[in-house]
């Protein structure tokens, strides 16, 4: 057994950093950014080292630690990693620094990023790269010339006001009278103190989110998992509500509340199931426990299993989201800041699919068997529904959010096909989807930052102006549609092959979904990147900056590398997935793992 408490370190470092960064005064924005980047990179390095220390051939959890927390209820702080959780932690650790770097200027969105803004682009309505003041673009059309003068004036004063100037411009745009009547000192004070976005707070929220994500994957105590599952919502809620698009105050608070209420509702249903599980364990074992390893060896009567399964399943289906529970995702995806959207769809939502394979199936094998047709049905509906809606979207972020719905359908399909191939594919898909959709969101975010709008119609022909950006966009899209050679192909193929051996009709139907994927990706690319440049503003857009190149480089590299050589990840994932299915009596024709480690848990009802 490894003695280094990797998981606890991975958990504590970002959590402690979050507290430190949150305590920084607002004016230390740059320090907050640098600190956050350093910490998240350190976490990434630690996660990579932990991955090397992980022995894929050993059964059960590794790096395990367990301390009593609330002994009255048998709750302990227990962490451990298996193949599934390890790769997801790795994904989280990778995406967070990327997001930090991509959000470098998004929050303050003004003079601080001045180095990036080339001189010729002194058009007042798009003076800022951060998407925030970029929103001033539409304001020009709506409110006439007055505000432009106001904003321009204040922007000019930005030379004096430093960082505050741009923010003043943002504030000034909706109310043209204000910058004129307010004495400059007061305006500046208002922009700085109550100012709409505190940079340290943003990065502290990101760090808190990272701690939550690591925790939720690392927990091996069901209660601890639940705690992280719920606690993670709060930073995300504030990321959407406080740091979403500046102009769309009503929409972003609506999206934030919808996200929170949906998730809380699911979470509370899960809480009922969690408590139920505890009570069942108290009846079975004489003492209640939340320890996952103990719980999975427990015999639960099928009727109770079904109820508990539904409690967990609905929570995960809302989180993932699966078809009828998905309506919060497009709103939340569209209203998140770019970094938030990447983490939301890339990692947070994986908690749902992770929960399905980690908790729903091993804990309630009979119920999983019973409900599998329903889940498979929902998954296939999701694949088509998500893809069709994605084709119809004009809002690019919503579009990407809907493509995720389709992808989550594939993942759920793989998980509930009950073959180790499909299961392994599904887990790999979780990672790959994080990379490809994450990259798509990032590129869309770059576009929005340049033009200040998510509307597809505002673009067109960008490949001529920004070839590099267009190239990355295409690669992300192709990865999203699972073109052979990209990472997603491997996972999608595994899912479909694995499903085919278990359920041929479903696999055939689901395969048709890939065609729709090609349509939404290529249609989006066609509308934004190819063709003539319709809007003159687009002619002056600049290509990827050095920072943006740094942001996309690791993901692009991984998309290609994992497309060609996915073996390292598969080596980690496969044993765990095989063991999971073997444990519930679902073995493939040729089992790769010695028979069930826990004979008690082998359900008589399971067929192979």
């Amino acid at each position, binding site marked *: 057994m490894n003695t280094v408490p990797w998981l606890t370190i991975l958990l504590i470092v970002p959590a402690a950093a979050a507290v430190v960064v949150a305590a920084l005064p607002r004016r230390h924005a740059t320090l907050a950014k640098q600190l956050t980047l350093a910490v998240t990179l350190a976490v990434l390095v630690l996660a990579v080292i932990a991955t090397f220390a992980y022995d894929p051939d050993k059964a059960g959890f590794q790096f395990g630690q367990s301390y*009593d*927390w*609330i*002994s*009255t*209820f048998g709750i302990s702080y227990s962490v451990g990693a298996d193949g599934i959780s390890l790769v997801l932690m790795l994904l989280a650790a990778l995406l967070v620094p990327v997001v930090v770097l991509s959000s470098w200027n998004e929050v303050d969105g003004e003079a601080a990023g001045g180095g990036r803004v080339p001189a010729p682009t002194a058009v007042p309505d798009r003076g800022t790269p951060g998407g925030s003041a970029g929103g001033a673009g539409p304001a020009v059309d709506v409110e006439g010339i007055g505000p432009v003068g106001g904003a321009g004036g204040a922007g000019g004063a930005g030379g004096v006001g430093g960082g505050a100037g741009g923010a003043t411009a943002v504030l000034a745009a909706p109310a043209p009278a204000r910058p004129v009547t307010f004495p400059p000192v007061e305006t500046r004070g208002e922009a700085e103190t*109550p*100012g*709409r976005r*505190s940079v340290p707070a943003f990065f502290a929220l990101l760090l808190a989110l990272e701690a939550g994500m690591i925790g939720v994957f690392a927990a091996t105590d069901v209660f601890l998992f*639940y*705690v*992280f599952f*719920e*606690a993670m*919502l*709060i930073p995300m*809620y*504030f990321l959407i*509500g*406080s740091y979403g698009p500046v102009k769309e*105050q009503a929409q*972003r*608070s609506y999206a*934030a*509340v919808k996200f*929170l*209420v949906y998730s*809380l*509702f699911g979470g*509370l*249903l899960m*809480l*009922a199931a969690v*408590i*139920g599980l*505890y*009570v069942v364990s*108290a009846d079975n074992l004489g003492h209640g426990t939340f320890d996952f390893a103990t719980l999975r060896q427990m015999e639960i009567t099928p009727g109770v299993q079904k109820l508990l399964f539904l409690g967990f399943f609905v929570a995960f289906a809302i989180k993932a989201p699966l078809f009828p529970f998905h309506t919060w995702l497009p709103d939340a995806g569209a209203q998140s800041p770019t970094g938030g959207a990447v983490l939301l769809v890339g990692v947070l939502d994986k908690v749902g699919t992770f929960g399905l394979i980690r908790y729903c199936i091993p804990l309630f094998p009979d119920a999983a068997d019973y409900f599998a047709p329903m889940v498979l049905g929902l998954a296939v509906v999701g694949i088509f529904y998500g893809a069709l809606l994605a084709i119809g979207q004009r809002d690019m972020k919503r579009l990407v959010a809907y493509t995720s719905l389709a992808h989550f359908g594939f993942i759920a399909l793989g998980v509930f096909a009950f073959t180790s191939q499909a299961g392994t594919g599904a887990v790999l898909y979780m990672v790959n989807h994080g990379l490809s959709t994450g990259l798509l969101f990032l590129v869309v975010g770059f576009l929005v930052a340049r033009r200040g709008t998510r509307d597809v119609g505002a673009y067109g022909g960008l490949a001529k102006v920004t070839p590099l950006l267009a190239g990355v966009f295409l690669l992300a899209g192709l990865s999203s549609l699972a073109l052979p050679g990209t990472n997603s192909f491997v996972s999608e193929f595994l899912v479909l092959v694995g499903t085919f051996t278990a359920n041929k009709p479903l696999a055939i139907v689901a395969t048709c979904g890939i065609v729709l994927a090609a349509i939404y990706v290529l249609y989006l690319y066609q509308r934004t990147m190819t063709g003539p440049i319709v809007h003159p503003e687009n002619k002056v857009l600049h290509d990827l900056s050095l920072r943006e190149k740094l942001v996309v480089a690791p993901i692009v590299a991984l998309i290609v590398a994992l497309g060609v050589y996915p073996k390292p990840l598969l080596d980690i994932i496969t044993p765990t997935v095989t063991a999971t299915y073997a444990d519930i009596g679902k073995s493939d024709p040729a089992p790769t793992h010695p028979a069930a480690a826990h004979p008690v848990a082998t359900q008589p009802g399971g067929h192979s």
Partner: protein
Amino acid sequence: MSADPTLLLAQAQKITPPSIEYSSLSPLLIVFAVALIGVLVDAFATRGARRVIQPILAGGGFIAALVAVAVLHGRHAVLASGAVAIDAPTLFMQGTILVFALLSVLLVAERQLDSSGGAIVASAAITPGSKGSTAQQTSADMQTEAYPLMVFSVTGMMLFVASNNLLVMFVALEILSLPLYLLAGLARRRRLLSQEAAMKYFLLGAFSSAFFLYGVAFAYGFAGSVELGKVADAVGAVGKNDTYLYLSLALLAVGLFFKIGAAPFHSWTPDVYQGAPTPVTAFMAAGTKVAAFGALLRVFYVAFGGLRWDWRPVLWIVAILTMVVGAVLALTQRDIKRMLAYSAVAHAGFLLVGLAGTNTDGLRGSMFYLVTYGFTTIAAFAAVSLVRTSDGEASDLSQWRGLGRTSPLLAGTFSFLLLALAGIPLTSGFTGKFAVFQAAIEGDATPLVIVALVCSAIAAFFYVRVIVLMFFSEPLAEGPVVVTRPTLTFGTVGIGTAATLVLGVAPQPLLDLANTAATSGFVR
């Protein structure tokens, strides 16, 4: 009855005074003595001196009583001829009440918030609109009787949870209620609203007391005694008149449900919570709830424990009604104090869910929940009192718009408290909910827990709405001012918030305490 005068005389002479263990009653006696001294201080000390002496006296008394409670731990006896029971649950609740009272005294003693000092009116007898009513708005005086009234009320609460005799319980109920009726009418600002609150509270409270008393009478008619233990014995015996029994149970329950603010007896809660001075509201919300629940637990577990299969369905219905009414009506509130009042109703419902488990876990869960809820709610009301306009507290929700931008610290703290009330993990609200829901599922009340969880989701929505207002909306041009001077209220907010966090992250010590208290059980 034979009316032989000599016999009566002989009996009278034979009556021996009950032996009273003063040491075991010391917490009660200390607080009662402090209340009396407080009255004397008010009579003889000068105005300025009163404002200094009274809070110190009250606070000191509470601390002394708290020490006495701590010393008494482990006592398990019926005292004063069966009138008072000192057992672990009693001591647990008494300690809790004292802690909350101590925190509330800090709020009452606050003088920095209002420009004229304090939330308590200068002279309650001046009716609004009459001569001098405007002058007293700015008067630096305060009705210092508030302190002894509060201490009396605490005496009543402590006796309420300790009474082993329905008649003593009724007396305690009156001791705790009468001062509260007065206190509710002492708000410095919005006098009419405050007086209306006091009047409503008094009328409805008197009504519910009558119900309670009527129930006591029926209990006597049934059991021939008002001692809880004897009632329990009579419940166990056969051949008694069951009609009296059920009438008694129903009427007693009405009186107690009124005090905890359970639907359909909750209608006083929003008006009184809104009208009363905020420190008093905080005190009421936390203290009264503990006291009333303590009495409720004792009556239901000790006296009518044998009937649990009869009262369980009633409890289910009341709990469901309370949660639904509290959560749904809170959605429609525009005033933050009213919203917190309806949230208090909903929380009373959650507490009843724990009680519906009718097991030791339920007792433990309820006691734990009472502590967590009390700390959070006191801190929340204290935070409300910090947000002010020139016209007193900015209690209208629309005035809280954008507060997260203008005063992030207060808004952050208040959001944290709201999240605790909503029951988000890592706050005490979650641990408390978990404790009661676990007890309920253990006690085969799973459907009730599902309803409770749905209501929690509804409730979360209106808490979150306030957070949305504070953080995601633009601040008002003429917004309220948040008092930033370090004051006593800061202490209360700080302690309440810290307790909310600590009980969420490391609840084990308190759970152990509650567990010990619950397993040792009620003395009969």
